[in-house]
């Protein structure tokens, strides 16, 4: 089971290592982790996507809550949040394939942000599923490099993760 956690933390040194340490120590696997400051500069928000059964998720939430600088932990409900991930992909691109790759990017509504005689770089911001689809479509051309931010997520509608 995959789940997404939103964690509000006090913006102080060492918080990230406390949290990532907790994951590795207790044998929880992280699929992605993204951090950034919130509207309140003293508070950061961490989005973690991880895998595990109900027992694991519950333990994880409880253990995270025990970390003193962690202010709030919320498990986002499936289907009730929007998630995005930014990805940059550098693809091998022989001149003969250039228009094909541009076409693929267009279909997926991705942007070409850079090019060289034998590569193009595509930027894409979407949910993880669509990001993976784009990667699959570009794979046959030969991928040189991928950079992903990890998922960030927000509740749909008026619900918010706040203090």
């Amino acid at each position, binding site marked *: 089971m995959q789940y997404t956690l939103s964690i509000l*933390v*006090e913006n102080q*040194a*060492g918080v990230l*290592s*406390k949290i990532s*340490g907790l994951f590795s*120590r207790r044998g929880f696997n992280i699929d992605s982790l993204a951090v950034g400051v919130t509207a309140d500069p003293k508070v950061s928000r961490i989005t973690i996507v991880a895998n595990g059964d109900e*027992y694991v998720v*519950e*333990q994880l939430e*409880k*253990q995270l*809550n*025990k*970390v*003193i*600088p*962690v*202010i*709030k932990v919320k498990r986002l409900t499936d289907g009730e949040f929007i998630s995005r991930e930014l990805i940059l992909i550098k693809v091998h691109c022989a001149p003969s394939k250039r228009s094909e790759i541009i076409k693929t990017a267009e279909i997926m509504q991705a942007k070409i942000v850079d090019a060289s005689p034998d590569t193009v770089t595509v930027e894409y911001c979407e949910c993880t599923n669509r990001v993976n689809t784009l990667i699959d479509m570009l794979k046959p051309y030969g991928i040189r490099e991928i950079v992903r931010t990890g998922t960030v997520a927000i509740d749909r509608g008026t619900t918010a993760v706040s*203090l």
Partner: protein
Amino acid sequence: MISGAEIMVKCLEAEGIKVVFGYPGATICPFYDKLYDSDIKHVLVRQEQNAAHMASGYARCSGSGKPGVCVATSGPGATNLITGIATAYTDSIPLVAITGQVKSSLLGRDVFQEADITGACEPFVKHSYIVKNTEELPRVFKEAFYIASTGRKGPVLIDIPMDIQENEIEGFTYPESVKILGYKPNTKGHAIQIKRAIEAIKASERPVIVSGGGVLLSGVKPKFQTFAERTGIPVISTMMGIGVMPSEHELYLGMLGTHGKPVANRALHEADLVIVCGARLGDRAVAKPHQMSEYNTVIHIDIDPAEIGKNVKTEIPIVGDMKNVMTMLLNEIGDYHVTRQWTETVRTWKNDMFRVPPKFEGFVEPRSLVSKLSSMLRSKAILVADVGQNQIWCANNFRIREGRFLTTGGMGTMGYSIPASIGAKLARPSRDVVVVCGDGSFQMSMNELATIAGQNLAIKIIIMRNHRLGMVRELQDFNYNCRHSATVLEGDPDFLKIAEAYGIDHAEADSNEEAEEIIKKMVKSDKPFILVCNVYPDTPSI
């Protein structure tokens, strides 16, 4: 103007700290210099690990609920503390550990005696700080003491670079309260869960209570006993929970687990309802905890929500301080009492399963001796057991009355008993404080005999000498075909001569009669004493 070091001392004074345990070095010297002018007593230990154990023993016995305090220098001083800190963490003992650190400007450069101690201790502390500004010190101390002693108790580490101790600032005010956004332990039990618990208790036929260290830590012992007595529910304890009830109490069945009392395990197994109070139920307590709820309903009361459901599947979780939860349970329980049949069944098991351990000629029988020792001490005596067979002999045979039984049940750190007894004696100078340790564990902290002698603490140490790492050897007997790899203690010194060298009174016994005669004299003396008991090497743990 006031220096950081002076502020540190003032913070400790503001917290009402009377004793700190420590060992100096260059980077903590500014603090030690100011401590010199303070009324706070400093106990100079002989190794930093023991400073943490002493602080643990002190905190467990002082009755104030305040954390024990230990101090070390940077680098090796700080790393020596780790085992002590980790022990306090697993045993949920409130501790504040203060370490010196290299100058802030040198942090991260691997200079002389720099160690990333907050990093190293990360898994073993409730929280830690590296202080970056002298101004922060009062807030950090206030928070550290608050965090260590509230919620699920545990150690908090404050790492303070030397320049932060030396810098001077305008003035000092100690904050009156703390404001930590992410730390608000829930101490009140949830009313609906309490109601469910009451219903489950009333519906049960064969309930038992399993109590852990949490009952002692929350200071709820009398109320807890009232609850058991009013309902007639038999009580089993974990190793950390020993002492929640007088051992001779008719409702008390003893310690559970692989090394526990058969009657305790049997009652747990046959129960249809288990009320777990402030216990984590590790694998030593319940061998297959996940299977427990297959045959009974579990109510789990704990201050730490993460403990509930972690090891044992729980039908009724109650997060809260035992003190509040017990009050609520007592208010709601009405005139419920277990059936006479259940009381009788348990009593029969208790009587049937009792046996007197066999003696070996020419040796002290440790289980009978510990049992006898109980009645030779005053009723508020504190017994400190080390780790190994000696610990099991004590756990199952010491008959506690109004006193305490201290040991490290969570971490099982050999060498705990001597330093912990020093903390206990300083916290409770008027009580009998007796250590029972093995010959292996004695040698892990016998350097602290100097601290005992130096402070002239009337601690009585009983060494159960079997020339073996007995508990591991027993394990080898069962699981490794009696291949005694590395469990025979060769080259041990004459412990009597060691005692002699420290100027500590001493004696040796080869039989229980002899040992009892010595104990009679020993308890009357107001000086430390070491009694070496020669124990038959193949004496079993239980």
